[in-house]
């Protein structure tokens, strides 16, 4: 088998944890399936980033540093990866299922004329992969035919790579050609938050329709979130109702999280929500309906009116933390 190529995504001049997870999964794939694990960094003015990723135990780092790659765009990034895959004997392309990973990898796969496995949770030594389907109600073992396999890995299924070694860095020039003419980056409107990133936080507190309004997220849930130093999440129902923005959504069609501690507050526990959080280490459910399905996955369940219980819990946490 040829090499494994890991797409090393960066945001605001840094590698998020999701990239370290991709590197770890890539190294695991190379050790099980053969070949070297290479990483690729795309962007403009990315020398420092290339140095950094070279220190995570990969064999080689490919760097395409080009003004045309300054902002992520599906067409230019696809054209670049297509060239690099062909030039570097790559038989497995891998990234984490982030917004960019999900946007980019299928496009690259189709350009190469091969299929792709999304949200892989295990890489098997026989070259098959495990991935969830039907909101996690099915774990499928899948195979990929073709000269290159393309997989996105689920961030909660692999550990982050640890620093070690110093790989060779190879600068490559790319020909963006016609790819650079059809799409333009216009703007990025960042959601400002002092809280930890939802997919990286040690503790996540999510609210559901039981909160009844966006104001109640602010009045009741946010003080608990901040007392715990947690990230805030929400169920699809709460997003649908317009209480909070969609980038807080935890579930099958939102973000998949697996923190050490997950609070589901006023969340009934629809299949689609469970798909996004059931791998959390410790799950706490607070709901006034004792029959709510969320209690069937919760390690600790409190049947209570959240409008009384949450402020009480917030105060108790503050007291405990002194």
């Amino acid at each position, binding site marked *: 088998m040829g090499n494994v190529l890991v797409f090393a995504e960066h945001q605001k001049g840094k590698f998020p944890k999701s990239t370290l997870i991709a590197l770890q999964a890539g190294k695991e794939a190379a050790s099980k399936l053969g070949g070297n694990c290479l990483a690729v960094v795309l962007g403009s003015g990315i020398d420092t980033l290339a140095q950094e990723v070279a220190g995570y135990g990969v064999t080689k780092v490919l760097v395409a540093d080009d003004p045309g790659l300054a902002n992520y765009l599906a067409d230019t990034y696809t054209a670049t990866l297509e060239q690099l895959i062909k030039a570097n004997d790559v038989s497995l392309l891998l990234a984490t299922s982030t917004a960019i990973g999900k946007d980019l990898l299928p496009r690259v796969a189709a350009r190469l004329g091969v299929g792709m496995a999304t949200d892989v949770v295990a890489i098997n030594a026989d070259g098959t992969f495990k991935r969830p389907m039907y909101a996690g109600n099915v774990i499928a073992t*899948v195979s990929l035919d073709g000269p290159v396999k393309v997989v996105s890995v689920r961030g909660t299924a692999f550990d982050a790579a640890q620093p070690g070694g110093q790989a060779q860095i190879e600068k490559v020039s790319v020909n963006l050609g016609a790819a650079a003419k059809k799409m333009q*980056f216009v703007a990025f409107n960042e959601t400002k938050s002092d809280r930890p990133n939802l997919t990286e936080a040690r503790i996540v507190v999510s609210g559901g329709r039981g909160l009844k309004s966006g104001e109640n997220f602010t009045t009741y849930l946010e003080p608990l979130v901040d007392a715990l130093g947690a990230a805030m999440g929400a169920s699809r129902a709460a997003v649908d109702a317009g209480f909070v923005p969609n*980038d807080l959504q935890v579930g099958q069609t939102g973000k998949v999280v697996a923190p050490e501690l997950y609070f589901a507050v006023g969340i009934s526990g629809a299949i689609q929500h469970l798909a996004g959080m059931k791998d959390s280490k410790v799950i706490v459910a607070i709901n006034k309906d004792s029959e709510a399905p969320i209690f069937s996955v919760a390690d600790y369940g409190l049947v209570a009116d959240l409008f009384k219980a949450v402020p009480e819990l917030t105060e108790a946490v503050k007291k405990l933390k002194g």
Partner: protein
Amino acid sequence: MKILVTVKRVPDPETTIRVKPDGSGIVTDNIKYVINPFDEIAIEEALRIKEKLGGSEVVLASIGTKVVSEQLRTGLAMGADRALLVLCEQALDSLAVSKILAKLVERESPQLVLMGKQAIDDDSNQAGQMLAALLDWPQATFASKVELAADQQSAQVIREVDGGLETVGFSLPGIITADLRLNEPRYASLPGIMKARKKEIREIPVAELNADTTPCLKVQKMDPPVKKTGGKKVETVQQLLDLLHTEAKVI
């Protein structure tokens, strides 16, 4: 403007899915089927564009057996003008689906293809991006807002990405995949349902399209997930916090 909207028939999201004991698939008895929820959002967006621009046509496209006409009929009742149903019995992966759709795009020459960002059965989130690649068209996935230029030659799309909202622009033709907050799909009205009965659902045998439908991705086996069992119920907030502190040691 001609808009092509893809429609997939999927199990109702409220259905509990079970794996067959031999791992060969899911138990399909008594499953209710619906339009993939994100495809419904895509249909709604196409209808809104049509209502705004006038002089547009919304064409639905699906792949499957004749039963899929049920979902296409629902989309027509929402207000789409006509539908294409590619008849195909075999299991397809996203690449094969995209190859079939690419053939339909060649035939129909739409200026815009609207799709759901992900089908809630196989959860692959690939077909839109793959179709864009095969056609060498621009793509805007995870759309939460779509604005077409007055001359209908380009579009600006706000995308739901990690940590915020991204705006991209592109020249048409192009592909947009719908995220949750793009709109709230309408229900089919009674007159809409009546009208839909007379609208055309054209059946096209897959062989007629000359697309390579050999799947690259094959499902070898299905297993149920490891069941997580519920833990204990606690009586008070203080008891909860004590357990999290001393037993689970997470606070």
